[in-house]
């Protein structure tokens, strides 16, 4: 068995709404696989089908070789799941939460205590193990939730937007943890809507409206872009954006912060052409430079299509 997760034409419908539309992908063992997409793209629905919370409407999926519909019992013991919603008991203490989580996975005695100790170190609980979870700061809670998911030492981790609502430093910390799990040989399936987080993945899938529209390593995705990307910085960028967007040689333009990213055919002399065009519009005060494509460019291109 080569893959930790294999999915074939997996579909989930809620009434008339198709949340996941026959997606296909494989996740290799030990890989960090990202599911990147906006809210409502079907990321959580996919993860919930893989974890056995939802039953697929069509297609098939295997986790560690086990069928996600017929062999849920086998799957449950080898996966860890961290849901989007904070899922520890707020009215129990750190230790009580971990003892409970461990015991429903059948852990007990010194083994359980060892795992609890490990998780508490990882989550940097310090001496707060007897505090109610609701009194802990957000970042520690998040790490503790992750700790709860790996308490039983699963080989595959499903993380559903694990960093939503956490500040950037905490997010970086969190990703270091994820890397360490990956180094320890665990497979990680993570959903996110943060572009910068997706860069951390070995491989990623772009998901929009229930469909995977692109899937590769972040590097390949960026390189495969058949366009050159330029960044145009100009004071009145909103007005300029409208003008640039109308130019025929511009394949796509998008506002990134206070600058404009312009996509044009590779090898097109954009700088020269643009200078002339802007001059006609009396825009003289600007800066233009060729840049490397970011995942955001890839995403925007796929999400919006060409203008």
């Amino acid at each position, binding site marked *: 068995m080569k893959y930790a997760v294999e999915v074939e034409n997996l579909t989930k419908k809620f009434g008339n709404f198709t949340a996941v539309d026959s997606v296909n992908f494989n996740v290799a063992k030990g890989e960090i696989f990202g599911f990147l997409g906006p809210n409502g793209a079907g990321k959580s629905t996919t993860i919930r089908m893989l974890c056995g*919370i939802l039953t697929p409407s069509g297609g098939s999926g295997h986790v560690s070789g086990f069928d996600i519909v017929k062999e849920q019992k086998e799957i449950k013991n080898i*996966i860890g799941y961290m849901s989007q919603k*904070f*899922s520890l*008991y707020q009215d129990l203490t750190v230790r009580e939460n971990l003892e409970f989580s461990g015991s*429903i996975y059948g852990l007990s005695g010194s083994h359980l205590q060892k795992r609890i100790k490990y998780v508490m170190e990882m989550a940097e609980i310090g001496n707060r193990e007897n505090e109610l979870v609701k009194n802990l700061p957000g970042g520690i809670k998040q790490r503790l939730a992750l700790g709860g998911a790996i308490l039983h030492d699963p080989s595959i981790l499903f993380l559903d937007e694990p960093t939503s609502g956490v500040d950037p430093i905490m997010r970086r910390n969190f990703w270091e943890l994820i890397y360490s799990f990956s180094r320890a040989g665990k497979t990680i399936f993570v959903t996110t809507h943060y572009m910068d987080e997706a860069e951390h993945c070995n491989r990623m899938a772009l998901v929009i409206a229930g469909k995977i529209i692109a899937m590769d390593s972040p590097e390949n995705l960026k390189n495969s872009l058949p366009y050159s990307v330029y960044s145009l910085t100009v004071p009145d960028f909103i007005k300029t954006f409208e003008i640039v967007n109308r130019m025929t040689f511009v394949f796509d333009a998008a506002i990134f912060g206070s600058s404009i990213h312009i996509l044009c055919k590779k090898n097109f002399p954009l700088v020269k052409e643009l200078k002339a065009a802007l001059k006609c519009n009396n825009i003289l005060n600007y800066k233009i430079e060729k840049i490397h494509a970011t995942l955001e460019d890839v995403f925007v291109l796929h999400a919006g299509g060409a203008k």
Partner: protein
Amino acid sequence: MKTDKFSKIKSMMIKEFKQTFRDRRMIGMLFGAPVIMMLIFGFAVNTDVTRIKIAVFDEDMSQQSRSFISKFISSGYFIYEKSVSSSDEGTELLDLGEIDVFMHVQKNFGSKVKSGKQTQVQIVLDGTDSSRASVIQAYVNQIASDYSFSFLNDKIKMIVLSRGSGTMRMKGTIQLKERILFNPEMISRNFYLPSILALIVGLITVMLTSMSVVKERESGTMEQIIVSPIKSYEFVAGKTLPFALIGFVDIIVVTVIAIIGFGVPFNGSFTFVMICGFFFILGMLSVGLYISTVSHTQQQAMLSTFLFFIPSILFSGFVFPIYAMPKIFQIITYFNPMRYFIYVNRSVFLKGTGIIELWTNLAALMILSSVLLFMSMRRFNRRFE
């Protein structure tokens, strides 16, 4: 890792107890509700018909009419509210709700009674509360017939004595000797408090179960449980057993308060109450579990609990007697676990009957709770797996 079969259930239970006793609202429900209900039904709710306010229009003003009226006052049930001087005045007092009964003693009452002629006394009753009115009516009849009977008796004695034949036997009359069994003083508290047991235990188990399951779903912890290898029966057992235990404790507490605090007689077997209580609680936990599968928030669970509870109280015979219901509703009551548990409690407390007389009730409770458990587990499993 080898662990024993019940370790998951055990740790579910421990967690559930901790959460329950950390939640102030829960504590209030567990201990406040029974105490308040006991106080209300022990002290405030009283359907015994006493303190009947009566106004009298005594047109006769004779010795006989006065002694007739005084029979009412001395019975202990009536309070002499007012003496009025016309029928209209009496009716007006009735309209205003200041009195329950108006009595009109006509002129010549005394002389007619003395001369052995038939006479009439008019009684006007406030029938707004029909059951109270019919009890008052019965009192009035009783007192009036007692009066005429003793009057007749005296008269016959006098005749007999005046003829000088003291040895002559009187013709036999039938005199009713009443003896009320099981609740001799007919105190309504004795009737209600044993039933409160069913109400409190039912309410607590249904509400706690439904709310605590929905709480898991609301807070997202349910998903964590679903992805774990815990089986649905282990989850349900761990979730409901603590509330079952609390239910048993409530049975004991309420029984003790009823006996010691309110002097309710307890004549039967407590073990039998507990056995019936076990199946009643099982049924109520199942209902709670079922409610949890149809509710998304704790508020919905609470509302659904009341939606279930109000009809089940109405159809239990707790306040409204089942025999007085139309046939179709009487049939409905057979599907109500509360009906049986209330009946068992009343019988065990007051009559002291046990399994020999009440086995049909126990059997009904067993069947109903098994069906409820089956139905709710099936529905729960569909949402759990």
